[in-house]
């Protein structure tokens, strides 16, 4: 599997990580090598095999629907790089 530069740019956008122009070449080489290593999985016959997304035989773990105290607003905001009143503050979203 080779991975072209357009795909790398697309993945960088999906991952929300700004791609530096000088990174493209190196990243393409590295990903190519790692994917080459991963490709050996393709030779296994897994037609009859069910995927394991979770190792424990438990599912639908729900808590009781009871109101309880959660983290106080001030505490939740303590680490915010920027805040206004009781809110996280971010650059303008709507033009």
């Amino acid at each position, binding site marked *: 599997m080779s991975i072209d530069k357009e795909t790398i740019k697309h993945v960088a956008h999906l991952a929300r990580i700004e791609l530096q122009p000088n990174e493209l070449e190196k990243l393409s080489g590295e990903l190519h090598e790692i994917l080459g290593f991963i490709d050996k999985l393709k030779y296994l016959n897994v037609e009859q095999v069910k995927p394991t997304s979770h190792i424990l035989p438990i599912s639908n773990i729900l808590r009781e629907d009871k109101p309880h105290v959660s*983290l106080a607003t001030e505490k939740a905001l303590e680490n915010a790089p920027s805040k206004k009143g009781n809110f996280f503050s971010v650059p303008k*979203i709507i033009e």
Partner: protein
Amino acid sequence: MELNQLTAHELLEKLKARQTTPKAILDSLHARIQKVEPKVKAYVRLDEPSLSKGIKIRKEELGGLPITIKDNICTEGLPTECCSKILQGFRPPYDATVINKLKESGAAIFPLKANMDEFAFGSSCENSYFGPTHNPWNLDCVPGGSSGGSAAAVASDEAIWALGSDTGGSIRQPASFCGVVGLKPTYGRVSRFGLIAFASSLDQIGPITKDVRDAAILTGIISGYDPLDSTSVNQGVPDYTKSLSGDIKGLKIGIPKEYFVAGLDAEVKIIIEEAVNKLKNLGAVTNQVSLPHTEYAVPVYYIIATAEASSNLARFDGVQYGYRAQSDNLIQMYKLTRAQGFGREAKRRIRLGTFVLSHGYYDAYYLLALKVRTLIKQDFDKVFRDFDCIVAPTSPTSAFKIGERAQDPLKMYLSDIYTISVNLAGIPAISVPCGFTKKGLPVGLQIMARPFNEEMLFRAAHTFEQNTDWHKLKPRL
């Protein structure tokens, strides 16, 4: 012997008999840190001024005994940055469940946190934003990773005992490289609430200690059901110290042939074979077994772990905590924050994970990996039908030189080749010191058991340890 050189259970006895005090123990740790930390660099943020304050000591079960915590486990009010720039200045507003349990047991949380590869992405501790930790047995070598700071601190007596986390070997491999004991508990045994997530279907918190008894005590304290972690299992926690019987007569041990192939260092191979002979002499019965899908474990892991990491690390966007880059545009703010905040390996893994989950590639990579994971798990199920445990090397080599593998991600990934399958199968495994190379570097023996059979690991590892002297050796620093 100085107090800081003792094991936790030895100190607990002294505390009980009033032969020492928590303050005396802390003082001996501080003296040791002052002396050797400039060489080892096991801890981060040493100059954090607010940390020079004393520790609150409660007198209960653990009597104020200090414990060292990896930098990815949330400690209320104490900086927890995953050794990443993107979490710069983060002070968690709550404690992880394991920290709560330790505090309830009377442990004192040591205010300095242990170094690690950024977000636990690595096998050498070189990917830390704060720079590498050095192996106490040879300062030119890595301590292993990602819990390298925890393992080096315990090995150099800068800590009594420590917590690490293990996603693909991050407790066992550094324990092996530093000559200490490290356990990855069964998936579901220990709550991960407050552990900053790397790969949620693989992560576990576990102990790094000077001997097996300490590992048994610490596992007993941190294990158990937690409503705040829906993957923790509601199953009683036994008194693990009761499994330290010193008797392994008749124990059936499988030796997987796929772990003794090309890539295994010749010297490590001989040391492991001698350890297996020791187990035989102690009454265990050993037989060769097969885990036929072993060679697929690393590729499966680098699909599943990076996919989960790309999703888990989406939360680091400069909005709620940590570092934020300046921009007038929201999307651009995200992109610059993440480009400047994450280190090279973190970016590599997030991008790889994003790729294998993206439209058009999901079935070819992610779904395929989940299917091969099933085959790997079935390999273990089959062997455990006939065997009590599996014994193998923890890592194919002893500690390598700092810088030696840093430029080659694939080579670095292969140092976890013997530990990764255990996480994929969800089973528990322990690494216990079993010898030294001619150059004086420690080698670890890995023992694996059925899910929720940590008792088997403690029994086998303790019997081996008590009949050898490897755990008594200390590095000269």
